[in-house]
């Protein structure tokens, strides 16, 4: 039975929606109980297509200009969504079509408890009240596998983690038993292990309830685990659609092939780089040595200003970096990987030794041998400065003026990162995300550093742009002998660029060593968990077992010193922290 039938859908924005079309002719059919995955890069119109299905697009200034959306309702009637009035749509939203969004943190009211908001959903949609509503709310949270539900009902949203909140969102959508669930990038804001849990949950719920699902994602790797059919979108058009295996194994359209090719697929260490400077055995002197780096944030009680304890954000992190080498630092959010990087650059106060031996011996070496490229290229460039001022800043900071030599270096670096050399007078907003990140890379290279810290430097970019920036980074590394500290949550990307990998968990390195060794034979249980959670295009409909364990608080009493770790030497360049076997 066809649940939803979309044909020739056109959606436009602005005063003249015909001229500002974002979706230009999308057609698909969705049977009851089926899952359709819509894949595309940002700006492909995939979210707008989904928002049109329940006409939420109207509230964002969009207009359906052409085409039809026919929804078979629970009572068997067929509703033409494009013609329906607002009252009819209000009944359809929630009751027939449920929707979950990318950002669970902003979807819940922060001043009401989770329980109150769940009960509200049942009161409104099912007319339950009092104890009945409470029991239904408890049931719903049980269904999304939230542990210790009775206590969680009394919690406020800020007390729950992102993964828990997304479960609560799913639970409140399921409260009305929708026949179609639209999930718009539901796991993009979440960590990879949490993502795996949510994906597993969605898969199980789909089987339990028999609802149909439209799953929107930019990550074609996620699709394999959940979808029955796949639709690939580009520039507002569906360039290819078909059964999962057909599209993934025999892509017909160039763009699908490009997407499948551009997305770095995790290959358990097989794709790791082999050109590492340590490969020959005789490594050069390290350009950066970090020994027992510790970052702690004191937590104060406001009134009495006595320290309540300290957050141990980074705990005894040690590693070294030789010229021409990339050390990938992987870990989930809150693991302290970014804090460690900021400590190395002196942005946060830290203890431990940072040595930069050999940095000053090179000819023309910089006074600032460590530079950084940030995650968000939109936030890391001052919007009011021209490209010339932006590139000049590191030079001005060292006390030099801007002379012809500096201008020549600007032109050379801009050319090197494939930006037009005549763009010196332009402002950041005139560039795309990828171009801005190239600009940030050029800026970091202005002072000829020996180490570049790349903090999630490609995470905010679309996959195809990401692939090109990664290529550029590898080329620059070979050309200038740069050492990279590459921080990322994306295992597949790290596998492509890193020679060595350090896995960070709860502020500590739990495993470090040669990239191929760590990824192919992980020793520490956390590393294994991380690797098994990476979405994989070859793992079709394989369920990830639900694991609800979370990282405990890093708050420690004042003066607490963690015990020294025991390390297990796994291979020639592969060490892991010993675990309690008890």
């Amino acid at each position, binding site marked *: 039975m066809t649940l939803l039938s979309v044909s020739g859908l056109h959606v436009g924005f602005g005063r003249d929606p015909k001229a500002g079309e974002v979706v230009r002719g999308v057609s698909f059919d969705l049977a009851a109980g089926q899952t359709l995955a819509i894949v595309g890069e940002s700006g492909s119109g995939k979210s707008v297509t989904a928002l049109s299905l329940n006409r939420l697009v109207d509230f964002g200034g969009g207009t359906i200009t052409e085409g039809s959306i026919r929804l078979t309702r629970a009572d068997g009637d067929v509703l033409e969504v494009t013609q329906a009035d607002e009252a009819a749509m209000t009944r359809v939203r929630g009751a027939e079509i449920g929707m979950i969004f990318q950002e669970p943190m902003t979807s819940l009211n922060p001043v009401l408890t989770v329980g109150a908001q769940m009960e509200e959903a049942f009161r409104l949609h099912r007319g339950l009240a009092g104890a009945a509503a409470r029991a239904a709310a408890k049931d719903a949270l049980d269904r999304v596998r939230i542990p210790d539900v009775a206590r969680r009902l009394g919690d406020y949203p800020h007390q729950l983690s992102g993964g828990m909140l997304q479960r609560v969102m799913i639970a409140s959508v399921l409260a009305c038993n929708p026949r179609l669930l639209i999930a718009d990038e539901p796991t993009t804001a979440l960590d990879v292990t949490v993502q795996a849990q949510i994906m597993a949950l969605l898969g199980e719920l789909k089987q339990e309830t028999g609802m149909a699902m439209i799953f929107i994602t930019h990550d074609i790797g996620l699709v394999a685990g959940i979808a029955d059919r796949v639709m690939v979108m580009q520039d507002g058009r569906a360039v290819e659609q078909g059964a999962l295996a057909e599209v993934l194994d025999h892509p017909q359209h160039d763009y699908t092939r490009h997407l499948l090719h551009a997305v770095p697929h995790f290959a358990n260490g097989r794709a790791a780089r082999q050109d590492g400077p340590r490969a020959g055995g005789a490594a050069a002197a390290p350009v950066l040595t970090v020994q027992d780096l510790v970052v702690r944030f004191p937590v104060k009680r406001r009134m009495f200003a006595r320290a309540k304890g300290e957050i141990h954000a980074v705990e005894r992190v040690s590693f070294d970096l030789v010229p021409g080498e990339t050390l990938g630092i992987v870990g989930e959010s809150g693991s302290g990987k970014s804090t460690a990087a900021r400590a190395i650059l002196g942005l946060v106060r830290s203890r431990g030794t940072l040595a930069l031996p050999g940095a000053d011996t090179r000819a023309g070496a910089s006074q600032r041998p460590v530079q950084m490229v940030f995650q968000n290229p939109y936030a*890391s460039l001052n919007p009011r400065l021209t490209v010339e001022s932006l590139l000049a800043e590191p030079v001005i900071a060292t006390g030099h003026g801007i002379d012809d030599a500096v201008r020549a270096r600007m032109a050379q670096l801009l050319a090197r990162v494939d930006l037009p050399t005549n763009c010196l007078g332009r402002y950041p907003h005139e560039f795309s995300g990828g171009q801005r990140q190239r600009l940030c890379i050029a*800026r970091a290279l202005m002072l000829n550093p020996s180490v570049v810290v790349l903090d999630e430097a490609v995470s905010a970019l679309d996959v195809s742009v990401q692939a090109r920036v990664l290529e550029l980074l590898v080329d620059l590394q070979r050309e200038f002998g740069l050492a990279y500290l590459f921080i990322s949550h994306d295992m597949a990307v790290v596998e492509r660029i890193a020679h060595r990998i350090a896995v960070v968990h709860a502020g500590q390195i739990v495993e470090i060593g040669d990239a191929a060794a760590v990824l192919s034979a992980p020793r520490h249980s956390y590393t294994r968990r991380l690797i098994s959670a990476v979405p994989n295009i070859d793992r079709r409909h394989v369920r990830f077992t639900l694991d609800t364990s979370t990282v405990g608080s890093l708050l420690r009493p004042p003066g607490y010193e963690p015990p020294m770790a025991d390390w297990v030497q796994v291979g020639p360049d592969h060490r892991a922290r010993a675990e309690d076997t008890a």
Partner: protein
Amino acid sequence: MIRAIFHHPSGRIGGGIVLVYLVLAGLGALGLTPHDPLMQYRLDRLHPPGAAYWLGTDLFGRDIASRLMVGIGQSFFVAFLSVAAAASVGTVLGLTAAWVGRLWDGVVMRSMDVLLAFPAILLALLIVAIMGPGTWTSVLAIAFVYMPIFTRVVRGPALSLKTREFVDAARTFGSSTRYILTRHLLLNIVAPLTVQVTLALAWALLTEAGLSFLGLGTQPPAPSLGLMLSDSRNLMETAPWLMIAPGVTIMIGILGFNLLGDALRDILDPKTRGGRA
């Protein structure tokens, strides 16, 4: 920028008014008034508006139109100077409070709260009472009264800009604090600051007139809008033009600055910039 102001409907009116006032004040300052503003034409005392005296004469036979032109100049002089002082000191305080934080932030912002707790005119009166009346005293008093507003307007955005990644990036380059404060913070606050300056000019104009009206600002016989208004009180029924001319002048002047401020806010706000071609 200038073109954008004159494309904006209220900017056209506000900008026009301010421009006309500036021209009048300039002519007044150069002595190009219809009559000598201080000359007393004894025979033409309380002469109603007409061909000889465009806006009439006052009790001493002085030409109102000429006195208005010089008075506008006087009021503008006080307003511009005091707002310039308030904006520069307030901006420096706001920027440093946001950047340094902790104790300095507390001291600065609590002092500003104390100043803001008093009505503007009352606080100005207090300062004039301490320092004695005069033009320079009113400049100082008005500057002092409006400084907290600038401190607040600057501190808020500065606090949020401080945590932006481009500031972190600048710190990794080792840029000096002065460079970060001017290029990264101040440059991004110029828009709200410009709007605030324009609006503060309107308030300063009003406060100056108020102080002069109470006899604490510009001292006679020098002409000033507030003083002229004050002089007209007892003759309101016999010679209404004495009151109408300076009153309307003050009102339109303030309206001009307010309209200009509204226009600047729309033009400089990136959210509304896209909507207007």
